[in-house]
């Protein structure tokens, strides 16, 4: 029997973002399922016609057009002026929200640590690709955010902010998501990282984010202790204490009880998946014990979050 009592101990930037991973992340970029309108020119195609690298279309020349975009080859053949249209490359609004409730500060490996590592890695990918990165901690019904990060040089600032965050209290997921959705962060991608073990539910919060037109990605992190609470056959009488509301459940952990709990967890996660599907939210559940580098480089790419 193992229960997560391991508290977060991460204090160094190196622990947050492994230097050996950085070079791999440099080659990645975020991929949104939606064509979103950015605020500034970036390195991401947008629907807006403009000064991008990818050709989009031709249109007849009109007075005042930039002559640099006239296709002189066509003029030579047809003796008419046409303008080449390109998909303009814009920046992407990337919001990475981490559940900062006490329930995240548990498990071995610590769920909050893993969540911050993934947030940092994704944030780094956003920064090096000139996206507007916002880091947010969902805690006690509020979204404490570090906004307006752009460019590789802001990496250290982002990492310091994440290191400084502590998981305690409740999430207040609904209120926090609404608070995040109401912030003027533009449109973009929102990645919400948490355990999603929420008494108050998660649907309303996710719906608020999705309703803003964001491309929402829900990443659920569960510890091995939550996924498999009992690893031996010995019965044990325990008093389980909820890390958030301190409620107690007295229980005798027998194989049947564990089996029952697993079944409930599966059902809960299934409901989470169905809810996300209904809201148009991508969702993924991971074990905090997995190799997060492999997760970033392989799983997220296969999921289409990174390219």
């Amino acid at each position, binding site marked *: 029997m193992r*229960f997560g009592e391991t508290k977060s101990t991460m204090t160094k930037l190196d622990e947050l973002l492994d230097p050996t991973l950085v070079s791999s992340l440099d080659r990645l970029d975020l991929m949104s399922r939606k064509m979103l309108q950015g605020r500034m020119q970036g390195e991401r195609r947008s629907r807006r016609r403009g000064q991008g690298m990818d050709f989009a279309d031709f249109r007849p020349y009109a007075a005042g057009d930039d002559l640099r975009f006239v296709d002189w080859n066509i003029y030579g053949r047809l003796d008419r002026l046409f303008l080449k249209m390109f998909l303009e490359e814009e920046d992407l609004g990337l919001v990475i929200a981490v559940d900062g409730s006490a329930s995240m500060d548990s498990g071995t490996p610590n769920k909050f640590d893993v969540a911050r590592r993934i947030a940092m890695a994704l944030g780094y990918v956003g920064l090096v690709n000139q996206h507007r990165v916002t880091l947010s901690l969902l805690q006690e019904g509020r979204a404490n955010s570090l906004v307006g990060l752009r460019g590789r040089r802001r990496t250290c600032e982002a990492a310091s902010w994440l290191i400084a965050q502590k998981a305690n209290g409740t999430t207040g997921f609904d209120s926090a998501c609404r608070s995040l959705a109401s912030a003027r962060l533009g449109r973009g991608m929102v990645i919400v990282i948490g355990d999603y073990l929420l008494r108050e539910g998660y649907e309303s919060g996710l719906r608020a984010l999705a309703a803003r037109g964001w491309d929402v990605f829900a990443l659920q992190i569960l510890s091995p202790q939550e996924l498999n609470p009992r690893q031996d056959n010995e019965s044990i*009488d325990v008093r389980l204490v909820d890390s958030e509301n301190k409620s107690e459940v007295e229980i005798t952990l027998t194989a049947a009880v564990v089996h029952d709990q697993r079944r409930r967890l599966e059902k809960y996660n299934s409901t989470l998946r169905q809810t996300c599907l209904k809201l148009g939210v991508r969702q993924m559940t991971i074990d905090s014990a997995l190799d997060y580098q492999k997760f970033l480089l392989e799983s997220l790419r296969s999921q289409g979050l990174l390219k």
Partner: protein
Amino acid sequence: MTLLTPFIGIVAALIVVPLLLVLYILKLRRTRRDISSTLLWKSKTEDVRANALMQRLRLSPLFLLQCLLLLLLAAALMQPVLQGWTRPSSRMVLLIDQSASMQTLDAPDKGTRLDQAKRLAIAQVEIWQSGGFFASSPPEIMVIAFGQDASVRIPFTTNYGRIREAIESIESTDQITLLAPAITLARAFTSEQASVSPSENTQANTTSLVIQLISDGNCSDLGQLSLRKNETLSWIRCGNSVTQNQGMSAAGAERRNDDPTLADAFVALRNFGETAVQREVQVRGNGTLIASSAEPFTLPGSSGKGATQMPGEQKISFAPFKISTSGVLSASLLPEDAFATDNRAVIAIQEQQSLRLLLAGNDSALESLLNSVPGVLLEQISCQDFAKRVVADTNWTDSFDVVVSVDCDVPTLTGGRWLIFGKPPAIASLNEYGQQPRQAIRTWKSDHKAMAQSQFSDLIVDQAAAIAPNSDWTALLEGSKGPLIVSGRVGNASVVYVAFLPMDSNWPFQRSFVNFTWQCIEFLGALGSAVTSESLEPGATIRMRVARGCTQVEVITPNGDRVAQNPIDGEIVFGPLRTAGVYRVEYLNPNGKQQTRAVAVNLTDAAECNVAAAEQVNIPGAQLQPQSIGFATLAIWPLIVLLVLLLLLLEWFLYYQSTGQP
């Protein structure tokens, strides 16, 4: 607030609260595990692993709540009652016992029980007047004093001064205790006042009656009582349940037939206590000691308990003593105990009187019988002359003590006392319808004074008048074909009618003929008072015949009070008698001579003389336990149980809040 059963509650609390503590201390020590969320965990305990016996007690709200619940339940077991609860504007009836047993000197201050009852009643009224818990106005109070009969001392009122005066004016009597008349009286007043308005008749039926009985509980009619649905009876006990009493159950004196100047006296004694006691008896005649027990004798203790208790008994006869004139004998049991009323008995011995008899008609057997009785002045007359005199002078028959008519036509029954044989008198209520042939005897009323100590089973009547008397008549002798001897009262005449002639039967040859004739004459003429007066019980009525023309008739009570009487048809009626002792009737006879006759009144009722205060009053359907003065009590335990249920809900809520379960 009073706890009816504090011991049970304390014992329960001493058991269950420590038990709860132990359960909490011995509670399975489960390993605390902090987990991220208990959202998906359901409580399921099997206590598979034994743990350490003792653990530190955690003062959780649940534990404190459960302790409170157990203490409340223990408190409910103590049956707390709230005194001072009374319904506003309710009406109270105070029933104060003034019977003989209430004179027992065993009150806490060595006074009588009646004094104690009056103090308690006044205290009770003061509490009621002060207004009780939840009371908006003092209740109306009615005071009824009762012994053998009941009287309203003050009807419903809130005037404290008048109520107090009414209570203090209650005096003791020597009567027995009957509760039913008092309750009937209370009901009558309650319904009467409730139905003053015709529109409130329906309300009268539902008027509640709250009765507070202040008594020693020795009521002889409890088995006949029944409380109605809207009646509440509570009882405040006076006296002590261990008080023992010895007294006289009977006393008598008779002149000797061979020498009327000598009289024999006897007393019967009884002991209601369980232990035998040494007692002495003295007999005084007109204040002078004339006889006494030779030495203190042993009065045995009673046997059995409760309803089966049989008091120990002893009878004592005294040597004949000389008493030539009328007088009063007084027997005393010494030394006196707490209840003095039955320690004395009085016997009134009258001066010898001649009995005037008129025999109408010819019957040799009757004539010889009546002539043989000493002290009888017998006059004889033929039937024809008798009929003429009766018609001529209607008061003539009343001048005789008894008129004996043998087969005469009696045209009208004038005043007087009649013993009629043969032809029936002209009385419609007898309903004569012919003659009955030969018949035997079926039954007779042996408890009638005229029929006592006689056997009629061998009597054969050859011929008798056929009568069918109405209910005004009492059949004393029933033949096989109808009544043969009847008794009744027609106008001013008291009549015993024998429907056959003695010579038409074998009766003259039987002893019952002599017994009946003499006893009937005694019954009709009250001849017994010439020998020895009959003792009456308190509560009875003195009915005494005096000669017509008597004046200045007065009854002198044992207290010395003189009460003037006006004889009606030569008879005075005085009563009901409230105290035991000698009542004297004084009058001037038509000759202007002062006459005095004494009537002895003694308390011999066994139930009344057993003065040990009752442990409880048992009436059909209810057992009243003695209560202390105060307001009616309100049982609080149901409220506590309700509170416990509410706290259980709170405990349930807290429990599921703490476990996070729905």
